[in-house]
């Protein structure tokens, strides 16, 4: 499995809301972040959840977001970040806006 994104890439999480078992939190959908780690291939949990093989495995990325960009009413420090592990099928390349 070759990873589409490399460390440092700016990525946008797809703003999709299908039913089913997902490992992509609502609060990052549609948001832009930066890849800090390529964690390797893991079987797709969206398929595993229904008793299927989860193959082909998907690259999983560690993505960092500016927390203040995730919640409108966030009152913490401006430099706070939130790190979420996201499967490749949820990520798209994004312009450098972070």
């Amino acid at each position, binding site marked *: 499995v070759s990873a589409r994104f490399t460390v440092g890439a700016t990525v946008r999480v797809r703003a999709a809301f299908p039913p089913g078992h997902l490992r992509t939190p609502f609060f990052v959908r549609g948001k832009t972040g930066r890849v800090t780690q390529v964690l390797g291939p893991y079987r797709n949990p969206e398929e*595993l*959840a229904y008793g299927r093989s989860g193959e082909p495995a998907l690259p999983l990325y560690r993505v960092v977001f500016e927390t203040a960009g995730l919640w409108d009413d966030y009152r913490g420090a401006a430099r706070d970040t939130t790190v979420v592990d996201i499967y490749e099928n949820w990520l798209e390349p994004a312009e450098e806006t972070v």
Partner: protein
Amino acid sequence: LTLPRAAADTPAHEQGNERRPRQQPSPAAPPPRHGRPAGRPGRPPKPEDEHDYAPWEKRVDAILRLLADSKRRLISTDELRRGIEELGPGAYDEMSYYERWIASITNNLVEKGVITVDELGRRMAQVAAAWPAGAEAPARPVAERKP
């Protein structure tokens, strides 16, 4: 939470996502909710290993491990989680941690035809009859007792 080893392909970052159950909250404490730390604000979190598990909770844990092991592979971690999500939004407030586990396990096994609703119903009635609510727990599991 240590997930079953048969689900060892679960990314390490996901292990420990779901907290182990803690002791029952005192009446003053709000009930633990999904996605919110169970500790009270301003207090250090309690050690994770403080909770004494009831025998039935240990049994649920063991059942899951056996179902998920490399020999059986009857349920995956993701199937367990999907089953918990499908219990509905009230499940996190109304059911305890291992109640959610056994409910999800049961539904998964019925879906796969490992057990049938009919045999489950009969067995539950059998257990209820042998073990009335409030009665002293039998020293050995019902199935192992001599008639």
